[in-house]
């Protein structure tokens, strides 16, 4: 009862909502990069929104099902085919024993989520099924999937869930305005440095992974260097090391860091960022924390 990996794709890992509650011990959160698409995939196949799924990056995998299951794909469009027939993203579908699901290069977006009814069943490690690639814990044997791996799926059967949600399919922009809240260490930068940050465009370099996105663009000026006494960081913290080029910290970030953080990406724009790829560009727009919290409270799936 499960899913067999025929070809793993570029980077496919088991992820859920993340390993929270242990960051004070240096244990990173990990979890799905695009939490919105991740939740949608689960809800589409009738799961609790935090069940474990497969996250594929840029190039999808090929899988064979070893029993009958209900599956949904969300996020990046990797032109999925079930036994050679094109299927739609953002819609639950039934698969039968022996069926082959094939995904290709992402034509839109960067990360695609495969959820199955009952969830991907790997052991819970420290409260989560998410893969922590750096410390090789959680997920499937603490690593990304390889050809030949067989993963268990929580529930069999082909009955589609009755009341299905209708999530909005994002448009996956290649150039986006990302809303941020200034700080907590904006005082480390000069007025000119802050202006550079908000007024110029930054390009995602090829050094963008689950840990962080290194951007390149105009150098952000500091008053006297960007080293601070290390403190806690969050998903979306934008740190600027001495090179003056910003780094956005993503799902696999370390829990603490020693570079000044000029701003933090708003929670509702993280999914946009999670679907961008090297070569794409972003600009940063400052909004107030109270405005951000108002927007967050009405931004659903």
């Amino acid at each position, binding site marked *: 009862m499960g899913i067999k990996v025929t070809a793993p794709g570029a980077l496919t890992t088991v992820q859920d909502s993340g390993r*929270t*509650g*242990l*960051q*004070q*011990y*240096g*244990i*990173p959160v990990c979890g799905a990069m695009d939490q919105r698409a991740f939740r949608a995939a689960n809800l589409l196949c009738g799961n609790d929104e935090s069940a474990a799924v497969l996250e594929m990056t840029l190039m999808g995998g090929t899988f064979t099902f070893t029993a009958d299951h209900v599956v949904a794909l969300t996020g990046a469009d990797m032109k999925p085919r079930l036994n050679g027939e094109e299927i739609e993203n953002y819609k639950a579908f039934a698969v039968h024993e022996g069926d082959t699901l094939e995904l290709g290069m992402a034509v839109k977006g960067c990360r695609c989520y495969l959820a199955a009814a009952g969830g991907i069943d790997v052991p819970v*490690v*420290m409260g989560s099924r998410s893969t*922590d690639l*750096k*410390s090789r*814990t*959680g997920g499937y044997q603490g690593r990304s999937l390889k050809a030949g791996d067989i993963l268990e799926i929580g529930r069999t059967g082909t009955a589609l869930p009755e009341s299905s949600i209708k999530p909005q399919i994002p448009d996956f922009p290649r150039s986006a305005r990302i809303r941020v*809240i200034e*700080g*907590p260490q904006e005082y480390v930068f000069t007025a000119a440095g802050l202006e550079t940050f908000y007024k110029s465009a930054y390009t995602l370099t090829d050094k963008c992974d689950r840990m962080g996105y290194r951007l390149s663009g105009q150098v952000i000026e500091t008053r006297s260097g960007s080293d*601070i*006494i*290390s*403190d*806690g*960081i*969050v*998903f*979306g*913290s934008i740190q600027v090391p001495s090179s003056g080029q910003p780094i956005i910290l993503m799902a696999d970030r*370390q*829990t*603490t*860091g020693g570079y000044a*953080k000029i701003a*933090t*990406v*708003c*929670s509702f724009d993280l999914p946009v960022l999670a679907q961008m790829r090297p070569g794409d560009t972003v600009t940063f727009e400052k909004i107030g*924390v*109270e405005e*951000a*919290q108002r927007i*967050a*409270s009405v931004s659903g799936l």
Partner: protein
Amino acid sequence: MDNIRIAPAGDRALLVQFEQKISEEVNDRVHGLMDAVQKAGIAGVGEMIPSYAALLIFYDPEEINYPGLKGEIEGLLSMAEGKSEGGKRLLHIPCCYGSHFGPDLADMEKLTGLSREEIIKIHSGVDYRVYMLGFLPGFVYLGGMDERLKAPRLATPRVAIPKGSVAIGGSQTGVYPLQSPGGWRIIGSTPVEFFDPTREEPALCRAGDVIRFIPVTACDYYDIRQDMLRGRYDLKITEVFDGD
């Protein structure tokens, strides 16, 4: 409340920054506030990350918004003249120095001008405060190393520093909880697991603890390691009070 700054870290967390310096006094205030926040049981407050001189507090803005939480924190700061109550845990960490347990000990003799006996005596003669955890699961940032043991990092970092290595980098000392690349100089190794995802408390240390290295022989190292793997090793933990 001088020198304290509260700022948003995005829409789901808030950072309280104390005076930005590395000192026991400032770190005590961080832990004092963390205790106070926990005791206050403020609805919507989630986990916290204490560091040298700051406390990051995660919260759910659906339950409490930024101005609301900021107000609560200001109230707690004005009441608690931040020191955590009671004693601190003192963990006695067995460490086998030198030979293949500490392949850089010989180089450390050259770098410091001290004999290996002196290095071991100095390194194990101080109690180190765990200021914070970070970098790797269970990695402790320790304060208090004797400046005589200061040594530059390796020019070329090792690809894999073994788990349990006790090492020195610059004026810091620490323990590698997992095999990891790194440029610190390895002077010894502990048989104790600093990180074990199967334990109820996966990290051995908590921020605010104190640790002391106890020199052991290679035989002791292997005995402790065996006991540790069989779940029969009881790490010695005592309590220390400020001024002790």
